[in-house]
Each structure stands twice: as structure tokens, then as C-alpha cells.
């Protein structure tokens, strides 16, 4: 986000987030400055964002390994695009949690949340193993592990869709669901090409 200084028109703001007429005349520097998760929120919204911050940060570790170690350009390009978009999403989620006066971290690792969606695929052991993998084996390991990781993101989005109440957080969950489903589609094709 910090590298970005741009003006976004009020039309885009209104169509994008549908809130805050007072932002019409502002110069926008980044999304988290203008997309506020106003309105009510509940425990599910808080838990979802906290878990997704941790989940995203694990994902960023994985794609940053792929940016360096993947062999195919298409894999590197996907990794870089996920890095760029998920970095912004982390900043946005943290700004929402902060505005709700909630911690931006979970008090334990996402892999301990077995009761909130099954035991997630990615733990520190997986990332450590990925760090050691080399060459073609790295790419295969990364793609399969990241497919599982993004499946978990879709599952968490389903929980937010079912039980969350905050409109911005629910809309975010829907975007996560769409984008991760398409990323999985791309990666399954990469795995078998």
C-alpha cells in the first residue's frame, strides 16, 4: 500500500464500498484509508479477520518462496500477483480490526483452530519443508500446498458468509472465495501440465 499514491474518483469509491459520502472530495492514497468496515460487527467477523490475517501471512511466506524458487514464469507471476494483492488485504484487515479496537493477531496459531473449520492444511512444519525443497520438487510442493492453503481460505470465507454480520467483511469474504477458487483452478492446471 505504501508505494501507492493515487487519486480515485468519488464514483469509484461509491460504487466500490457504498459508504461515507464525506469521502467524495478526498484524495485517496490507499484502499485501507477509504474502505472502512463501518456498521455493526460480531464475534465471527472479528475471528474471521484475525484468522485471515494469520492465514494471509502464512500465504505470503509461501508465495515469497515461490517468487524466488519456482521454475516456470507462470508460477512466479501468480506468486507475485498473490503477494501484491494479499499484502494489501492484510493491511486492510488490520485497519478494520484496529478500528474495532480488536487485536490483529490470534492468541494461538491458526493450526490450533481445529474446531473452526477442521485442522487447516498449513502449519509451520509445512512451510519449513517448503523452504528446504529445491528445483522441480519445490514447484510441485508449493503448488499442492498452496492449493490446500487456498481451499482453507474458501472454507473460512464460507463461515464468515454464514455467521458474520459486517457488510464490508462479508463482501471481502466473497472476493476471497472467488479469487481463491480461480487461483486453485490455475494451480491444478499448472500441477498437471
Amino acid at each position: 500500500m505504501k508505494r501507492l499514491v493515487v487519486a480515485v474518483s468519488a464514483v469509484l469509491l461509491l460504487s466500490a464500498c457504498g459508504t461515507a459520502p464525506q469521502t467524495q472530495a478526498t484524495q485517496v492514497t490507499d484502499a485501507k484509508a477509504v474502505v472502512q468496515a463501518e456498521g455493526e460487527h460480531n464475534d465471527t467477523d472479528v475471528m474471521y479477520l484475525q484468522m485471515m490475517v494469520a492465514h494471509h501471512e502464512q500465504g505470503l511466506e509461501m508465495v515469497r518462496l515461490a517468487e524466488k524458487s519456482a521454475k516456470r514464469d507462470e508460477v512466479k507471476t501468480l506468486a507475485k500477483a498473490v503477494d501484491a494483492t494479499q499484502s494489501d488485504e492484510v493491511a486492510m484487515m488490520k485497519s478494520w480490526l484496529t478500528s474495532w479496537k480488536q487485536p490483529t493477531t490470534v492468541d494461538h496459531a491458526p493450526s490450533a483452530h481445529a474446531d473452526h473449520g477442521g485442522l487447516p492444511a498449513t502449519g509451520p512444519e509445512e512451510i519449513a519443508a517448503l523452504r528446504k525443497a529445491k528445483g522441480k520438487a519445490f514447484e510441485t510442493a508449493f503448488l499442492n500446498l498452496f492449493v490446500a492453503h487456498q481451499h482453507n481460505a474458501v472454507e473460512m470465507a464460507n463461515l464468515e458468509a454464514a455467521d458474520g454480520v459486517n457488510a464490508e467483511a462479508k463482501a471481502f469474504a466473497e472476493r476471497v472465495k472467488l479469487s481463491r477458487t480461480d487461483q486453485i483452478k490455475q494451480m491444478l492446471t499448472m500441477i498437471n501440465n
Partner: protein
Amino acid sequence: MRRSIAYPLVTLGAIVGSAAVVASPALAHGYVSAPPSRQALCASGAVKDCGQIQFEPQSVEAPKGQRSCNGGVAQWSVLADESRNWPAKAVGKNVTFTWVMTARHRTSNWEYFIGGKKVATVDGGNQQPDAVVTHTVDLSAFPGRQTVLAVWNIGDTVNAFYSCIDLNVGGGGGSTTPTTPPTTAPTKAPTTPPTSKPAPTTPAPAVPTTTAPAAPASGSWAAGVAYKTGDVVSYEGKKYKCRQAHSSIHSWEPSIYTLALWLPL
């Protein structure tokens, strides 16, 4: 056969909360990603019109002991539909199957069947499996076109997960060859994702592929296009410049949420 595993066994003390897990529907599990299982072919878009399974290939869960590609679950009957001309992956005689696990249930074992005959069993030791598990199975006794049923038997529930993988054994490595060209169009099934609460502002464009076409010099944004840094698109009456190369997908259209990809001009 031998067993090879991509990652060290995870020895977390945590118990998988299976009782809590069943409360929510889409809580996930596992499937064979490579060689591609039928649900993986649906999820990757290589086989079209599969219905809901394309969004949750990990969900073919049914009581243990089933021997059909859909685990006997009516909702996933497309996976047992032999008229779909599932493409068979050409493989050698030793085939390495890769499972993607999205919930790491304690595992009784994995079993592999061809034509109802068991060809391999891998013990799971009632442990949590790794997130990615691979097994290498000797299929030299089964040359030619085969459908392998791979079963993941869970240790602490009555259920198992089912994946069918279509292979051309001994056909070499690498390419995927349909054994018979499809002669009739497959029947239509719903292709839209369910429970899309906030509907996208535009109709869902074409499905993305990894071999996406290059962007036209200047045109409307579309999904499934390989955009390069510097490409300019129009979207909802405004122009944007691509600032991070990517293959475009749903929800990555230019907006306040994708400033990392698209700079408003």
C-alpha cells in the same frame, strides 16, 4: 509398493475436532490432485459442466466401503458418469499419487483399487497426515486405460474420501490423451458458484486458464487474460493501467480493492 511422503509427519498433540466439524457443511478434507482425479479435472476446468464439485473437489466424503467414484453420493454423481469421457493421463508403470489434504484427519489407511480389486494399501497409523501426501504405486500389472479408485479412510470417523483417477498406464510420462473423443456435448449443469451473496457487478466472464491469451492493446477488462505491467484496460467507463503482471481472475477486476494490480488513470 513403497511409501514416500513429501513432508515430515506432523506430531501435533491436537485432536481433530470431528464432532464440531460435522456441524458445518463445507469443511473440507482431501482429494487427489496429481495425476488429476476427476474432481481435480472439474476444479481445473479441464472437464466442464461438473456442477458444484468444481468448487469443492475435496468434499467427496461417504461412509467407508464404497467402491464408486462418487462414493455413492448422489450430489457427486457426475464423477461416476462414464459417458463424460474422462481424459486419461499417460503415466509410467510406477505412479505417484498426490493427495491434497485440507483437513488433516487422523488416518486409518489409504487404499487403491482397479476394477474392484485392491492394488495397494498404505497404513496411516491413526496419525494426522501431512498437508500433502504422496504414494507411489506399482501398476505394471495393469497396462493401458485404467480407472483407479483412491480411498482415504479416516481414523476417527466412519467416513472415507474418494477420488477416481483415469490413467493410461505404461503410456509414458507427461501428456494427457483422451481415449475416445467426446461425440456428444455433455449435459448442462449449473456453473455458477452458490451462495454468492454480494453479486459481482458484472456477469462472470470466461474461466481463466494458465495459458491465458495476451491482452489486446487496449480493451475492456476480462477474466482469463494474461495482463502485463503497463497494459491499459477500460472497466466500467474508466481506464486503468496494470502495475503487476497477472492472469486475471474473478474479483481481480480493477477496483478500490485491487489497487495492487490496477492503477486508475
